[in-house]
C-alpha cells in the first residue's frame, strides 16, 4: 500500500475514533443517590423577564439540606447567547430562592453546581422552555 493511501486510511481511522469517543476531561459528578434536587420557577410557566428559581434540596428520605452552596448558570440552547449567572449561599429548610432573569424566549437549560455541607459536590441540569412576556 502506498504512503498516500496509508495517510488516507489513517485519517479515516482517526475520524472514526473521534466519532466514537467522548473526551474525559470534564468530569461532572452526578447527584448522589441519597440527595434529591428539584427546581421550580416563578412565574410558572417561565416568561421573559425577572423570575425566581426555587431549588429544593433534600435527602432521599425527605429531610431538608440547608447551608449548601449553589452556583447556577442559565444558558439558551442556541450557541452564543450570554449565560445568566447566579449563586445561592444558604436556604432555610433546604429551599433556595434565587433571583434570575430570562433574557429571551426559547429553550433554556439551567445547570446547578451544588456543594453540600458535608463537602460533597455534584451538578444537575434542568431543561425548560421560556415563553415571551
Amino acid at each position: 500500500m502506498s504512503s498516500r493511501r496509508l495517510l488516507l486510511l489513517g485519517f479515516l481511522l482517526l475520524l472514526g475514533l473521534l466519532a466514537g469517543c467522548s473526551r474525559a476531561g470534564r468530569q461532572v459528578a452526578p447527584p448522589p443517590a441519597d440527595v434529591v434536587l428539584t427546581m421550580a420557577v416563578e412565574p410558572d410557566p417561565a416568561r421573559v423577564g425577572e423570575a425566581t428559581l426555587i431549588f429544593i434540596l433534600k435527602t432521599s428520605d425527605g429531610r431538608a439540606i440547608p447551608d449548601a452552596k449553589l452556583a447556577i448558570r442559565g444558558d439558551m440552547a442556541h450557541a452564543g447567547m450570554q449565560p445568566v449567572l447566579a449563586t445561592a449561599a444558604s436556604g432555610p429548610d433546604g429551599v433556595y430562592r434565587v433571583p434570575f432573569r430570562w433574557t429571551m424566549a426559547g429553550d433554556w437549560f439551567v445547570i446547578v453546581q451544588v456543594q453540600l455541607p458535608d463537602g460533597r459536590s455534584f451538578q444537575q441540569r434542568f431543561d425548560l422552555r421560556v415563553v415571551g412576556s
Partner: protein
Amino acid sequence: MSLDLLHVPVLGPLLRGRWGRLLGQGPLLALAVLMVYDGLTGPPLAPYNFATVLAWVHYRGLVILALVFCGNLFCWGCPFTLLRTLARWFGRRGRRWPRLLRNKWPAIALLVLFFWLYEWLDLWADPRLTAWVVIAYFVAAGVLEALFAESPFCKYLCPLGSFNFAAATVSPLQITARQATVCRTCVGKECVNGSTTVSGCGTELFVPLLASNRDCLFCLDCARACPYDNVALTTRSPWRELVADAWPRRWDVSFLALVFAFIGLSNAFAMTSPIYSLLAALAVRLPWADEGLLLLFVLAVLDLVLPTVLGLGVAALSRHLAGRDEPLRLSLARFVPAVMPLAVAIWLAHYGFHFATAALAVIPLTQQFLLDHGVTFAGLQPAWQLGPLVPMAWLRPIELAIVLIGLLVSLYVLGERNRRHFGAQGTTVMIPWVVLLVLMAVAAVLIFSSPMEMRGSALGG
C-alpha cells in the same frame, strides 16, 4: 482611483506567493479540525462547544462582515478546497461536470435544503451534528474535486459558496486585469488554463472578462498563473457591478439573487416567536403534523414560492409599464441586481446581531477547553460573563439602521439601472421594484422588531 492590493508592498507578494492562500486556509483548517474534534468529543451543549459557537456565531458573523467590508475572504481561506489539491495529488484527472448542471439551479436547491436542515435539525444547538456538517463538506468537496476536472463543488453546489458569491456582488474588492492590451495579446491564457506549476481558475473565470465577483473564489490562482503579472485585486465602489450590466441575463442567476434575499428574511423570521405560532396553526390545518414537513412547507413558500411569484410579478408589471415586447427573463434580469444591497443588509443585520452578542464568548470557551485538557495557564475560572461586543440595547437600532442603509443603496442601484435602460423619462418602469424593495425592508424591520425566540426544536418536539 482604485488601489491594487496585489501590488501593495509586503501584502501583495504575500498574497500572490505560491503558498499565499495557505495564510487563510491553514488557520481555517486548524479551526475546522478543532470544531470536528470538540463537536464529536466535547460537551453536547451548544454554548460550551467550539463546533457550534465557531460555526454559528463567529463564522457567520465574520463571513458577512468580510464580504461587506472586504471581499470573499472565506472562499479564499476555505479549507474544504484543500482537498482539491489533495485530489490532484492522488493523480485523479476527472471528467467535465455535466452540462445540464452547469448553472445555479443546483446551488439554489442546495441553499434552500441547507437552511431547511439548519432549522429542522436545530444545527445551531447540536455540536455533534455541526461537526458532521463540517466532515460532510470535506468529503463532498474532496469527492467532487476528485471526480471532475473543474471545481464543481465551489461553482455549482456549495451552499456557503453560493451565499458568498451572492453577497460578494456588493464587496469593495474585485479581480481585474491591469492592462487589457496585455490580455489581448496573451496566447496561453494561463489565468484560466493554468501553467505548468500553477492551476488556472478553479471556477473557470477569464480575468479580462471579469465584471462581477460572482463565482470568484478570491483564490488568486489567476494572479499566480499570469506570466505577465497583469492581474490586480482592486478596490471598487460596492455597487459598481450592480449598476453596470455585469450579470448574465439568465433565469438561474436572477433567481439565485431573489432566493438569497428571501432566505435572509426567512432565516431571521425563524428565530422569532411568530414562526412557532404559524407552525402550530399549520399543524392543525394541514394533513401532516411532522415538524420537518411543516418547516419544509413554510420555507418552500418563503424561500421559493414567494420570490418566484413576487419576482415574476414585478418583472411582468415593469415590462408592461415599459411597453416593451421582450422575454420576461430580460425584464427580471434588468432590475434584480438592485435587490442585492438590501438582501446583504438583512443578512448583515441578522448575523451581525449574533456576532455582536457573543463574539467574546470564545474566550471563556477557550479557557474551559484548555482546562478540560489539563492546561491551566489561561485561568481556573472561565470568564463566562464575557460575550457581547456592544451593549445589547444598541443592537436593535443598529439592525434597523443597516436595513435602512441597504434599502437606500438598493433604491440608488434601481434608479441608476433604470436611467441606464430607460433614460430620465422612464421612472414609472421601476415603480413595481420600488414597491417590492420597500415591502422587503418593512418585512425585515418587522422581523427584527419581533420578540426573539430560539427553541432547540420547534413545536416542542
